[in-house]
C-alpha cells in the first residue's frame, strides 16, 4: 500500500510533535541492515542490487527459453522429427514464447531500467524502494510458479496466447494452464507495481535542472514503456482472471455450449498483447539511442522527434491489436480499420530508424562491440519491421498469419531488435555496473556469430512461411515440402543449424562474463567518452549513487562538462576528462545522505502471494495459509519503522566510520 511509504515533506512531520516513531514491526522485528552476504541481497531495496538480480534472473530464463528453442529446432530439423512427442512439443513452444517474453525480455528490460534510470536522472534511489523489491520478488515467484508445472504434470500447452476454448479445462486437462494463469498474474502484479514506481521516479526524482526534455532517451523510452504497462497489464489480468475462474471454479466465460464467444479472449489478450510488443522493443530502442550517439560522437539526431515518436508508438500501439485477428472473422469493417491503423504505426517507427541513421551520418563512428550490436539492431529491426508492414495489409496477412513467415517477423524484431539492443546494453554498461570491461575480442566474436546465426535461423523462416509451413506444428511432412531450391527440408535444416550457432554466440557471451569476472581488467571511469549522467560517478556506483547530486544544464550533461564548442570552427574541444569530473564530484561530496533501509517484507509478501496462488490449485487450507502470510506481511509492511536503528549497524551508523545514515 502506498500510503505510508515515504514522507513527502519533512514539514508535516515536525508540525505534529507527538509522533511516536516505532522502531520495530510486529513487536520485535527491526529493519534488516546487512550490507554483505546473501541477506544483503534478499532484503535489499537498493535499485542497483535489484537491477542486477533482475538481470541474473532474466539471463537464466534466456538460457532456459533458448534450450527450449533448441529442442524445437532439433525436432524440426528433418521431416517427421522424433526428438519430441506432440505433447512435449506443444509445451515447448508455449513455454518458450512465455518464458522469452515474460521471464526474459521484460525482466531484462527491468534490470536496465532499475539500474540506470535513477542514475540517468541523477537520483539516489527510486520513489518507492520497498515496492521496487516487491516487484522483483513477485516476478521471481511468478516465474517459479510458471515453471513448476514442468514437474507437476506438464507445462502449459496452448501457445503463448492461449486461445480459448482450447485453453479450457476440457481441452487442456493437465494443470499446465492453471500454473500459467497463476504465474502470469503474479508476475503481472509485479510489473504493475514496478511500472508505477518507475513513473513516479522519473516524474518526481529528477536532479535539479533535469527537465523532461533533457531526460536521456533511454529514460524516456522506459517511461513510455511503464505507461504502456500500467494501462495494458490490467487487461490481460482480466483475461487471466476469467480463465482462472473458468478452470478452477467452473465459470462459463469461454464455454461455447453456454453461448460464449471465444473471440472475447482474443480481444482481451491482444489489447494487452500488442502494447506488450512495444514494451519489449522500446527499452532496446532506448539503449541504442544512448549507444549510437556515444560512438558516433554526436548527439542523437532530432531528440524531440525520437521522444515524440516513442510516445506516439505507445499511443497508437493501443489501437491496432486486432491485426492479430485478421483471419478470426471480425468482419470487413473492423479488419479494414485495424489494417490502416497498423500501417500508421510504421510511420513513427520509421522516424526512429531515420534518426539513428542520421545520428551516425556525419559522425566519427567507433565500432565497439556495443556499437556493432546497436547497428545490428537498426539493420535487423528494419527487416522485421518491413515484414510487419507486409502483415498489415490484411488480405495478404490472411495468407501469412500462423505461418513461419510470422515467426520470422517477430524473431527479427524480437531477436534482431530487442535482444541485440540488450546485448548492446551489456557491452556498453558492463564497465559501469561492475567496474570491469568485457573483452572486446570475444565480444566481436559474440556479435558476428550472433548476427550470422540470427540470420541463418530466422531468415529461412520467411521462405518456409511463404512456402506454406504453418507454425506450431510438431512435425512437418515431406508431402507438403515441395522440391527444388525452396523446399522445406533444406531451409528447416539451415534454420536448425543456425539456432546452434546462436547458442554458441550466447555461450561465448557467458564465457566472456566469467572471464571478465575472474581476470578482467579494471575499467577506466569513462571508457567510451560517454554522454549521460550515469557516468558522473564511480564504476560501479556507490550505494548512494552520487557523492553530489549533479545539477543539469544540458541534454548529454556529461559530454558538455567534458567538451566545449570552438565558436570559430564548430568543432568540440576537450576541457576535462571524465575521470577529472568524477574526482571533482567525489571531492565535493555532500556530507549528509539519506538512503532507504532494507526490509524483510517485500520477499515475505511475495512468497505469501505465491502460496495463495497455489492454494487456488491445491485447496483451501493452502489458500488460507497464503492469505495469512499476505495479511501478516502487509501489516508488517505498514507498521515497519521507517528507519533502521543506528545501533543495529556494525559498526554503528551515525559515527564517523559509517558515512551513511539511513532514512525511510
Amino acid at each position, binding site marked *: 500500500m502506498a500510503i505510508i511509504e515515504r514522507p513527502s515533506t519533512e*514539514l508535516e512531520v515536525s508540525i505534529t510533535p507527538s509522533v511516536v516513531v516505532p522502531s520495530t514491526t510486529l513487536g520485535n522485528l527491526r529493519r534488516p541492515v546487512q550490507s554483505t552476504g546473501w541477506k544483503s541481497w534478499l532484503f535489499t531495496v537498493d535499485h542497483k542490487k535489484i537491477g542486477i538480480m533482475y538481470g541474473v534472473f532474466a539471463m537464466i530464463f534466456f538460457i532456459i527459453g533458448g534450450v527450449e528453442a533448441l529442442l524445437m529446432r532439433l525436432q524440426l530439423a528433418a521431416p517427421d522429427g522424433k526428438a519430441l512427442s506432440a505433447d512435449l512439443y506443444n509445451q515447448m513452444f508455449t513455454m518458450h514464447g512465455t518464458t522469452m517474453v515474460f521471464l526474459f525480455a521484460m525482466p531484462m528490460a527491468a534490470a536496465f531500467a532499475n539500474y540506470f534510470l535513477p542514475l540517468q536522472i541523477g537520483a539516489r534511489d527510486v520513489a518507492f524502494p520497498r515496492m521496487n523489491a516487491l516487484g522483483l520478488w513477485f516476478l521471481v515467484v511468478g516465474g517459479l510458479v510458471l515453471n513448476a508445472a514442468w514437474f507437476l504434470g506438464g507445462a502449459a500447452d496452448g501457445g503463448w496466447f492461449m486461445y480459448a476454448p482450447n485453453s479450457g479445462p476440457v481441452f487442456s486437462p493437465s494443470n499446465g494452464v492453471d500454473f500459467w494463469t497463476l504465474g502470469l498474474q503474479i508476475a503481472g502484479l509485479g510489473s504493475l507495481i514496478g511500472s508505477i514506481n518507475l513513473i513516479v521516479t522519473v*516524474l518526481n526524482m529528477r536532479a535539479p535542472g533535469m527537465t523532461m526534455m533533457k531526460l536521456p532517451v533511454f529514460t524516456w523510452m522506459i517511461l513510455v514503456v511503464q*505507461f504502456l504497462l*500500467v*494501462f495494458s497489464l490490467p487487461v490481460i489480468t482480466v483475461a487471466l482472471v476469467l480463465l482462472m475462474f473458468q478452470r478452477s471454479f467452473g465459470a462459463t466465460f469461454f464455454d461455447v455450449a453456454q453461448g460464449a464467444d471465444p*473471440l472475447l479472449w482474443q480481444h482481451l489478450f491482444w*489489447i494487452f498483447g500488442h502494447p506488450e510488443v512495444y514494451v519489449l522493443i522500446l527499452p532496446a530502442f532506448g539503449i541504442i539511442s544512448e549507444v549510437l550517439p556515444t560512438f558516433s560522437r554526436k548527439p542523437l539526431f532530432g531528440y524531440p522527434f525520437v521522444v515524440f515518436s516513442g510516445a506516439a508508438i505507445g499511443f497508437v500501439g493501443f*489501437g491496432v491489436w486486432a491485426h492479430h485477428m485478421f483471419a478470426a472473422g471480425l468482419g470487413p469493417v473492423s479488419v479494414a480499420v485495424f489494417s490502416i491503423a497498423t500501417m500508421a504505426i510504421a510511420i513513427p517507427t520509421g522516424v526512429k530508424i531515420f534518426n539513428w541513421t542520421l545520428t551516425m551520418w556525419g559522425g566519427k563512428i567507433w565500432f565497439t562491440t556495443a556499437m556493432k550490436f546497436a547497428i545490428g539492431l537498426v539493420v535487423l529491426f528494419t527487416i522485421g519491421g518491413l515484414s510487419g508492414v507486409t502483415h498489415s495489409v490484411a488480405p495478404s496477412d490472411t495468407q501469412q498469419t500462423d505461418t513461419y513467415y510470422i515467426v520470422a517477423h517477430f524473431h527479427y524484431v524480437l531477436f534482431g531488435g530487442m535482444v541485440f539492443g540488450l546485448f548492446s546494453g551489456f557491452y556498453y554498461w558492463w564497465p559501469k555496473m561492475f567496474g570491469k570491461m568485457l573483452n572486446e575480442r570475444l565480444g566481436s566474436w559474440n556479435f558476428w556469430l550472433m548476427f550470422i546465426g540470427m540470420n541463418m535461423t530466422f531468415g529461412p523462416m520467411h521462405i518456409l512461411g511463404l512456402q506454406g509451413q504453418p507454425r506450431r506444428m510438431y512435425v512437418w511432412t515431406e508431402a507438403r515440402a515441395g522440391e527444388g531450391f525452396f523446399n522445406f527440408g533444406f531451409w528447416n535444416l539451415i534454420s536448425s543449424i543456425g539456432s546452434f550457432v546462436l547458442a554458441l554466440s550466447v555461450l561465448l557471451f557467458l564465457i566472456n562474463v566469467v572471464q571478465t569476472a575472474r581476470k578482467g581488467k579494471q575499467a577506466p571511469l569513462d571508457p567510451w567518452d560517454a554522454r549521460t549522467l550515469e557516468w558522473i560517478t564511480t564504476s560501479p556506483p556507490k550505494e548512494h549513487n552520487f557523492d553530489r547530486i549533479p545539477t543539469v544544464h544540458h541534454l548529454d550533461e556529461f559530454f558538455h562538462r567534458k567538451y566545449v564548442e570552438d565558436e570559430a570552427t564548430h568543432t568540440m574541444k576537450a576541457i576535462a576528462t571524465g575521470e577529472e569530473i568524477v574526482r571533482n564530484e567525489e571531492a565535493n561530496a555532500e556530507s549528509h545522505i539519506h538512503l532507504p533501509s532494507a526490509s524483510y517484507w517485500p520477499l515475505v509478501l511475495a512468497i505469501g502471494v505465491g502460496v495463495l496462488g497455489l492454494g487456488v490449485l491445491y485447496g483451501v487450507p493452502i489458500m488460507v495459509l497464503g492469505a495469512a502470510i499476505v495479511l501478516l506481511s502487509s501489516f508488517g509492511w505498514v507498521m515497519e519503522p521507517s528507519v533502521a536503528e543506528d545501533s543495529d549497524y556494525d559498526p554503528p551508523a551515525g559515527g564517523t566510520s559509517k558515512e551513511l545514515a539511513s532514512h525511510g
Partner: protein
Amino acid sequence: MATATEHAEHTEHEQHGLTDGGYIKVAVVLAVITALEVSTYYVDFGPFFMPSLMIMMVAKFIIVVSYFMHLKFDNKLFSFMFYAGLVLALGCYFAALATFQFFS
C-alpha cells in the same frame, strides 16, 4: 527543508476544493440525479430512456471525480494519468464490443 516556492505551492493546495457546505450541496445534487435515475425504472421515458440514463451516469461520474476527488482543482498531471486510463479503456473496449456487433 523546503524552499519558499515549494511551501507556497503546498499551502495553496490546502485551500483548493470546496467548503464542507459545498460538498454537501454537491452530494445533494448527486442524490437528486440518483433519484431521477431510479425513476426511469418506474416511469416510461420512451426514446429518451437510454440517452438520459447515459447522461446522468456521466454527470455523476464527472461530479464525483472533479469535486470529491479534487481533480478539477488539482495538478493536471493527475488528470492526465486518470483520464489517459479512462480514455484508453473507453476506446479499446468500445472498439472491441463494436467488433461483436454490440451496438448494432
